[in-house]
C-alpha cells in the first residue's frame, strides 16, 4: 500500500467524527422530564384512568375517543370506576391539564414527538397567556 498513511488518517478522522456525539454527551443523559399538574388536576387525584395507564395509553385513548365521538355519536365515556366523562380533548382533557407547556410539551419534547392536536384543538379557554 503506497498511501497507507493517508488511509489511516482517513480512518481516524472518520471514527472521530462518527463517535463525536456519543463521546461529547457521555455521562450527560437528559433527565426524564417532570410534568407539573395544575391545581385542578391535583384535586381530581385520578385522571380518566390510572396514571400508569394514561402515561402509556393516552394517545390510544384519544384515538378511541375521536372514533367513538365522530363515527358512533357517543360522547360519554364511562371508566372502570363508573365515572362519566365527556369525550372531548378541548373541553375535558385540556380543562384539567390547562398547562400545555408544563404538562404535554415536556414529555413530547423529551420523546421527540410532535403531535398536531393543538393545531385545531385550541388549548383551554381558561388559560391566559
Amino acid at each position: 500500500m503506497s498511501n497507507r498513511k493517508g488511509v489511516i488518517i482517513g480512518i481516524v478522522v472518520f471514527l472521530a467524527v462518527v463517535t463525536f456525539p456519543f463521546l461529547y454527551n457521555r455521562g450527560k443523559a437528559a433527565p426524564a422530564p417532570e410534568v407539573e399538574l395544575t391545581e385542578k388536576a391535583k384535586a381530581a387525584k385520578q385522571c380518566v384512568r390510572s396514571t400508569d395507564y394514561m402515561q402509556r395509553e393516552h394517545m390510544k385513548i384519544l384515538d378511541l375517543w375521536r372514533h367513538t365521538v365522530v363515527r358512533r355519536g357517543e360522547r360519554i365515556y364511562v371508566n372502570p370506576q363508573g365515572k362519566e366523562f365527556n369525550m372531548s380533548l378541548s373541553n375535558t382533557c385540556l380543562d384539567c391539564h390547562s398547562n400545555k407547556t408544563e404538562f404535554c410539551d415536556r414529555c413530547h419534547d423529551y420523546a421527540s414527538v410532535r403531535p398536531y392536536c393543538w393545531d385545531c384543538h385550541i388549548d383551554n379557554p381558561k388559560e391566559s397567556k
Partner: protein
Amino acid sequence: MDSSRRQILKFFGISTLAMSTKPLLDAFAADPAAEGAESKETFLAGPEALKARQWAMVIDTREFHSLEDVEPLIEACHSIHNVPNLPIRRHEIKWIWETEYKHAFPMKGARFMAEELEHRPFLVLCNHCENPSCCRACPTQATFKRESDGIVLMDFHRCIGCRFCMAACPYGARSFNFRDPRPFIAETNKKFPTRAKGVVEKCNFCAERLAVGRLPACVEASEGKVTFGDLYDPDSPVRERIKTNYTIRRKQSLGTEPSIYYIV
C-alpha cells in the same frame, strides 16, 4: 402391571380428551378475570342526545324576503363553528349560505317568474343526502354517512385534501381550506375545533349540539322558519311540514335523496 396395548390406547384416549377440554375450561375460567379493572370501559350517547333515523330540514322560503332575514342564520352557524371569513372569493369557506332560485334549483325555473320568487334568498347547505355521492368518492372514508342518525359527517383527522368529495357533491356544499383559516376567524369559539390548511369542510347538521339535546344553530336562529326533525318519524315536525305543504328538493333527479326540503 404389564401395560397392554389396550391400556396404552385407553391412556392416550383419555389424555386427548382432557387436553381438548383444557382450552374450553380456560376460557370459562378466564372470562371474569380478563374483564378486570383495566379493561372495563363503556360508551354512552348521553342522556339528552336527540336521536333520529335520518335528520331532515324543511326551510320555509316564503318567510325569507331579504338578506337581513337570512344573515342571522348564517352568522349563528359560522360563528359557533369557527368558519373563517376569507376575503378572496375562491378561497371562501361556507357551511350555509344564500343563493338565488335559478342557482339553487337549476332546470326548475320558469320564464317570467314572479320577481319576488326570482330574487328571494334561498338558504343552501349540505343536503345530508341519503345516497351521498361525496362519501362514495372519499378514498379515506374521512367523510361518511353516520349510521346512527344519517348525518353526512367529516372526520377532519382523516381528510387528505384530495377534494374528490367536492367534485362529487352536486350542490357545491363543500369548501376547501386553501390556506390556514385561523387568522380569518373573527372570534374563535374554543368549544369547537378549528380546521387546518388542506382539509375539506362543510355543514355537520350541528352534530355536536344534537348530542347535547339542542337543535342546530340555524334552526334555533330562524325562529320557526326552519323546521328540523326525523324524516322517518311520522309524527315529527318535518313530516308535518312536508305533508301540509308542497315542497321541493335540490337536484332531486340525480338520485342522491337530499334531506333538505324547501317550501316555495
